C-alpha cells in the first residue's frame, strides 16, 4: 500500500509527463530525490522522460515559486532595451503549488513578475512539511542515515539507533499554523482539497514574543541573529525577493553594512522582513533553508499578523485585491500616531 505522498508523486509524474509530452509546457518545476536522508532537490524537468524523476514528500520545504520568474524569463528571446516585446505566445512553464506557494504566485502575478497565461499551476494541497531541524533535534543531533516516511510517522535510522517520530510533531511551525493549505489558484489539482484549517492560535509564536518584556525581546532577537553569516539563503529562498539589486547588496545607497556586527545583521533582517510586508505567505522557505537556524520567520509572521489585524488582508488570497501597501483605507488604524492618541484620549 502506498502512502499519500507516493500517490501524489504518481499523479505529479503523470501530469508532468502529459504536459511535457504534449508540449503544453516547456519545463516543469518540481522536486526530485536528494542525496541525503530527508533531502529533496528542486528540479526543472525539461523532457518528458524527466517526469519519472519527480517526487513529492514531506521535505519539500523550499518554495518552488522562487524559480518561476527567472525560468519564465529564460524562455523569452533575449532583448535589448527598446526592442519590442516578443510576438506570439511564449513557452509555458508548469509548477507545483501548495496553498502558500500558489499565493506567492498570485503575488508574483500582481507584481508583474509572472504572466498567468504562461503558467500551468499544478496544485497540491499541503499536508504540512517536516522540519529537518526538528527531526535532528528529536534524535539528539545524531547522524541520520535513513528516513522512511509513512503517512503519519517517520522512521529515522542511524549508526546504532532507530527511532520512530510522529510526523505532525516535527512538522514546521508555519505549516502547523497554516490556515490555507489548498492552492488558491491552479489549473490542475492533485490530491484532495484539505479545506480551510481551523487554527486556534495562528500567531501564538508571535504572541509569545510580544509577551516578553522589551529588554527580553531585544536580547532574544540579538542573540538569535548573532549567528547569521549573511549568506542570504533566507532572501534567496524567498519567492518575493526578486530584485536585481537587493538593498543589502547596493552600495549607492548603502543602507546596511556588510559585516556580521549586530547592527548590520539586525538591519538586514528587519528590512528584509519589512520588504515582505503584506506579501509574505508564511511559506517558511526562509527559515527552512537557513544553515544556522535563525528564526527570521517570526518577523514576517509578526507583519502578517499586523496586516491581517489592521487591514484585514492576507497576501495572495486573490488576484483582484490590491496588495495592502499599495492601497489604503481612509479609516486605517492610527493609534500609533501621537497626535491621534491625545485627541481621542483613549489610547494613552
Amino acid at each position, binding site marked *: 500500500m502506498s502512502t499519500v505522498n507516493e500517490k501524489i508523486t504518481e499523479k505529479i509524474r503523470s501530469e508532468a509527463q502529459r504536459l511535457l509530452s504534449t508540449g503544453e509546457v516547456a519545463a516543469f518545476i518540481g522536486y526530485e530525490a536528494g542525496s541525503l536522508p530527508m533531502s529533496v532537490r528542486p528540479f526543472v524537468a525539461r523532457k518528458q522522460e524527466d517526469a519519472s524523476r519527480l517526487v513529492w514528500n514531506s521535505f519539500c520545504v523550499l518554495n518552488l515559486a522562487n524559480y518561476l520568474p527567472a525560468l519564465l524569463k529564460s524562455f523569452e528571446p533575449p532583448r535589448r*532595451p*527598446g*526592442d*519590442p*516585446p516578443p510576438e506570439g505566445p511564449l513557452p509555458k512553464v508548469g509548477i507545483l503549488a501548495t496553498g502558500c506557494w500558489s499565493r506567492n504566485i498570485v503575488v508574483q502575478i500582481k*507584481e*508583474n*513578475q509572472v504572466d498567468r497565461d504562461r503558467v500551468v499551476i499544478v496544485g497540491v494541497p499541503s499536508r504540512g512539511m517536516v522540519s529537518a531541524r526538528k527531526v535532528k533535534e528529536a534524535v539528539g543531533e545524531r547522524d541520520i542515515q535513513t528516513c522512511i516516511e509513512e503517512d503519519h510517522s517517520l522512521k529515522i535510522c542511524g549508526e546504532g539507533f532507530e527511532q520512530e517520530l510522529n510526523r505532525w510533531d516535527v512538522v514546521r511551525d508555519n505549516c502547523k499554523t497554516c490556515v490555507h493549505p489548498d492552492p488558491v489558484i491552479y489549473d490542475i489539482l492533485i490530491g484532495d482539497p484539505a479545506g480551510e484549517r481551523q487554527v486556534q492560535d495562528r500567531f501564538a509564536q508571535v504572541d509569545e514574543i510580544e509577551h516578553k518584556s522589551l529588554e527580553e525581546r531585544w536580547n532574544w532577537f540579538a542573540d538569535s541573529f548573532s549567528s547569521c553569516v549573511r549568506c542570504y539563503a533566507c532572501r534567496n529562498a524567498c519567492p518575493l525577493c*526578486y*530584485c*536585481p*539589486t*537587493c*538593498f543589502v547588496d*547596493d552600495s*549607492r*545607497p548603502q*543602507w546596511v553594512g556588510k559585516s556580521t556586527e549586530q547592527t548590520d545583521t539586525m538591519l538586514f533582517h528587519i528590512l528584509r522582513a519589512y*520588504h515582505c510586508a503584506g506579501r509574505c505567505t508564511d511559506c517558511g522557505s526562509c527559515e527552512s533553508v537557513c544553515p544556522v537556524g535563525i528564526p527570521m520567520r517570526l518577523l514576517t509572521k509578526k507583519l502578517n499578523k499586523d496586516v491581517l489585524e489592521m487591514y484585514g488582508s492576507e497576501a495572495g488570497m486573490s488576484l483582484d485585491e*490590491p*496588495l495592502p*501597501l*499599495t*492601497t489604503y483605507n481612509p479609516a486605517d488604524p492610527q493609534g500609533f500616531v501621537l497626535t491621534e492618541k491625545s*485627541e*481621542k*484620549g*483613549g489610547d494613552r
Partner: protein
Amino acid sequence: MSNKKNQQGNTGALSEVSGSVLVVGGGIAGVQAALDLADSGFYVHLVEKSAAIGGGMSQLDKTFPTNDCSACILSPKLVECGRHLNINLLTLSELVSLEGEPGSFKAVVKQNPRYVDPEKCIACGTCAEKCPKKVVNEFDMGLGKRKAIYLKYPQAVPLKYAIDAQHCIWLNKPGRCGMCEKVCPSKAINFDDKPTEHMLEIGSVIMAPGFKPFDPSRLDYTGYGRLPNVVTSMEFERLLSPSGPCMGHMERPSDGKEPKKIAWLQCVGSRDINRACHGYCSSVCCMYAIKQAVIAREHSESGDLDASIFFMDMRTHGKEFEEYYNRAASEGVKFHRARIHSVLPSGENDNLRVRYAGEDGEIRYEDFDLVVLSVGLEMPQQAIELAAKAGVSLDADKFIVTDPFKPVSTSRNGVFVCGAAAEPKDIPQSVMEASAAALEAGRILAPARWKDTKKKEYPPEKNVYSEPPRIGVFVCSCGINIASVVDVEAVTEYAKTLPGVVLAQNNLFTCSQDTIDQMEETIRKEGLNRVVVASCTPRTHEPLFQETLRNAGINKYLFEMANIRDQDSWVHQNEPEAATEKAKDLIRVAVAKVRGDAPLPYNSVKVTKSALVIGAGVAGMTAAVSLADQGFPVTLVERKDDIGGHARKFYRTWQGNPVQDYLASLVDTVKSHENIDLKCGVSVKGVSGSVGNFTTVLTDGTELKHGVSIIAVGAGSFKPDSDSRWNYLYGKNPNVHTLLELDQKFIAEDSSLSGINQTVFIHCVGSRVPERPYCSRVCCTHAIDQALKLKELNPDMDIFMLYRDIRTYGQRERLYQEARAKGIIFIRYDLENLPAVTEEGGNIKVTVKDPIIDAEVELNPDMLVLATAVRPKVDVHDLAKFFKCSIRADGFLMEAHMKLRPVDFATDGIFLAGLCHYPKPMDETIAQAQAAASRASIVLSQDEIPAESITAQVDPRKCTGCAVCTEVCAYNAVSIDEATEKAVVNEAMCKGCGACVAGCRSDAITLKNMGNEQIMAELETIMDNW
C-alpha cells in the same frame, strides 16, 4: 487659423483691446479668478480692501466636507498670487470709479497708506510686540486683541505689517509714541505714507467682493449681544482655529471653560422675512454647522461633547454633504427638527436655555453651555456701494443680478461677478464661478492675450558638472531676530570649516534688496556653484534666493536653506547656546545636502493647442464654444446621434427662463462654429499621452491630437420601475410621471394638464437612500417650480408635496415661499415611512403619514409626479479608465480637490463639467463648463507649459517592474513600459511627492535632489559631532 467668427461684436479692433483685467476682492473667488487670468496671458490688478488677501476662507478652521484645514489648502494659492509676475496686488485699496466700454475700461483705484514700507518689512513682528496700543482683532471676530501695527493673520499675503491709522497713537497724536519706528530693525515704518490713486487701463472687470456674516444683534430672541455664551458661527470658527484667540482649545467667552454641550441654531438671518428681512436661504449654514459640531467633538478633551443642531430643513445638497450629515448623525451629533422660540439665560453660570417647539408643536426646553448661531450670508454695505460704482444692478436681496444662461455676467457688459456676491454659496461653487468669470473676462480680450504680461529673462547657466563644489554660505542675522539668540559670527566661522565651503558671510538682512544684489555679485566673483542661505523658512524665501542664483547664472536647484529663524532662534529664545549649536547643525546638514544637489532642467512640454470635449450636452457645448471663441480648435464628441443632452427635456429654469429657446441657439452656435469639429455617434476608444499632448482614438478610428480634455458626459436618471422600494406604479399607470416627463408636457403645451384636480409630487425617489446616499440637488426646486406652473394652468388644482427636507437653497427659497403662499401643501415623510402608492380601478391612491398631525393621510391624485434621482452613467467608468481619473463610490467623477480644484482632475490637462461631477441645475452647469474652459485655456494659451523639475527618476537596471510605484502614484505619472517591463516616469505628470520612492524596495526609483543617498548624507551629518 482664422479668428473671424470668434471675435464677439462688443469688442473693438485688435489694437484697442486691453490685455489687463481688474479683479475686485481678494477672497478665494478673486484670487482664483486672478490666478486663472494671469496664468492664461492677462495682466491682473487685484484690488483688496484689507491689508492682506485671503478673505473669509482664511478665517475658517476646517472646511466641509473633507475637514481640510482651511489655511493649509488656501495658503499655497495666496502665496502663488502674491508672487505672480502678472498679478499686481493692490491691498488696502478700493475701486473709486469705472468708465469705458468692454475691452477698454478705465478704472480709478484708491490705495490707502500702510505706513509700513513693504519693500523693507521683513515681518519679524518686533513692532507689534512693542506696540503699546491694543485693538480689537476683527480677524478673530472681535474675540481677541491685536496691536495697532499688525499682521492680518500669520499666513497673510503679502506678509507685511500695516498700521491701523484709526488706532495708532502716533498717527493720531504725532510725537507721542513711535515705538514701532524705534524698534523696527529694517527702518520700514513710514508715518508719512499717503493715499495714492491708480488709474488702470483694463479690458474687463471681475467683481468678487464676497459676503458678510449676518449680524444677529438685532434678533433679540437669540440673546446675541446680551448673553456672552451666544456666539455666531464665524466667531466659533475662530474659537476652533488653532491660530484663533484660544489656540484651538475651544473656550467659551464668559469664563474660558471648555463647553460640554453646544447648540447650533440654524437659519439665523436666513429664510426669515419677518425678523431678518432675508427670505433667501444662505446655502452653506447647514453644512458648516454639522462640520463645526463634528470638529468641536474632535476638539473636546473628553471626546463626548454633546452637540445639537436645531434646524427646519437639513440642506445637505452638495457633493458628499449627505454622507457627511449621515456620518455626523451616526457619530452622535443630535439633530432636532425644530424652530427656536428663544434663547434664555439658565442659572448663574452663564449657561443658556433654549426654548423650542418640536415637530409635534410641543414646547420644550434644553440647557446648553454655548449656543452657536448659524448666521446667514449677506451682501456687505461696501459691496453694495462697489456695485453702484461699477454700475451693476442688484436684485431685491441686494445680490448682483446675473442671468441663468450667463451665470457670471452682470447687467454691465464686460463686468463679471463670482462668489457669494451673486447669491450665497459655498467655496467650491465660488471657485468654480471664479474660473468661469475669468474665462468670460478673458474671452472678450482673447486677441490681447500676452499683450500686457511680463516675462522674465535670465542669463545662460554655468555648467557646474565638472567643477568641485564651491559653496557659499550666507548667514542672516535677520536684524536681531536671529542674532539676538544665535551667535551668528561663530556660526559663520564654523560654516567656513565645512567641506566644500569656500565662502561664508554674515548679513544683517539677507533678503533685503541690497544684500540680494551683493549676493549675485559674490556668486559671480567667487565662482560659487552652490549656495546655502541660513535664515528663515524656505517656504517663503526659497523662491527669492533661487531667483538670485538664476540671475547669477547658476541653476536654481543648487541651493539649500537652513531655517535658523523660524525653527531655531524663535523657538529657543532662552537657550542661546543650544540654539547656536543647532544652527551649526542645520548649516552643516544644508551644506551636506547642497553638495549632492544636481542642476535640474526647468522642464516644460510643448502644447498641442486644441481641445477634446466629450459629451455635447449643455456643459459640453458651453465648454466647446467658450474655447472655440478664443480661437482654440475643439473636437466635440457625442456618443448619441443628436446633441443637446438632457436639456432637450427641460421646460424652464427656476428663474422662469425657457430652456428650449436657449438650447436651440446654443446648438446652432456649436454646429456653425468654424473652430468646432462636431462628431456625433462616436465615443472614445483609447487615450494616451498627458497634459499638452494627448492622443485619443475614437470608435470610428479617428485619431485626435489635443492638449486638453474636458469630460462632460452628463448623468442619467433613476427609473423607479424595477425597484421594489419605489413601487409607485411608474410605467404601469399612465398618470405617473417623472419630473422630466412632466416638463415635456409643458413644452408640448399639453392642454390636459389644466383639467387636473389633484397632483401629488413625491420627492427623493431614489435619492438619499443607502444605495444612493447623495441628494440629487435639483429636484426640490424643479418640483416646486412645476407645481407653480400647474397652479398657473389651473389655480384651483390641489397640489401635495411629499418631501423629506425641502432643499430650495439660495434664492430658490423664493419659490418655496411662493408655493406655500399659493396653498400648495407640504407633507414630510421619513425613509422609515415611505408614502405608499396603490391603484384601484386605474385610480391612484397615495397614503402617507403626516408627522405634524401624527396620522395617515390618504390622497387620490389624478397625476402623480416622482422626483427621481439623478444617477451617474455606467459607461463613465470606461472613460475614467482611459483618462486615468478616479470615480467616487457613488459613481460620480472625482475632482482633484473637492474644495479648491472643483473642475480639475488630479491628472493635469483633464477637466470635468456638468452632471458627471454631481447633479446640478443649468446655471451651475453652465458656470462649471465655463470654469472647465477657463482651466483648459490656461494650458492652451501657452506654447509650452512648465513641468515639475524635482521629479522621480527610474534606474532601469534596478527596476523589477513590480508596479508598486504605479499603484501609489496619485497622478498616474509612473507606468510600466510594455516593451522593457520597467517603470517609466512621465515627467510632465510627476509632482515630485516621492511616494513611489518610499514604496520601491529596490531603490530603483528616486527623486531628483531628494534621493536616498542625499537623505542618508543629511542623516549622518546631523549626527556628526565634530
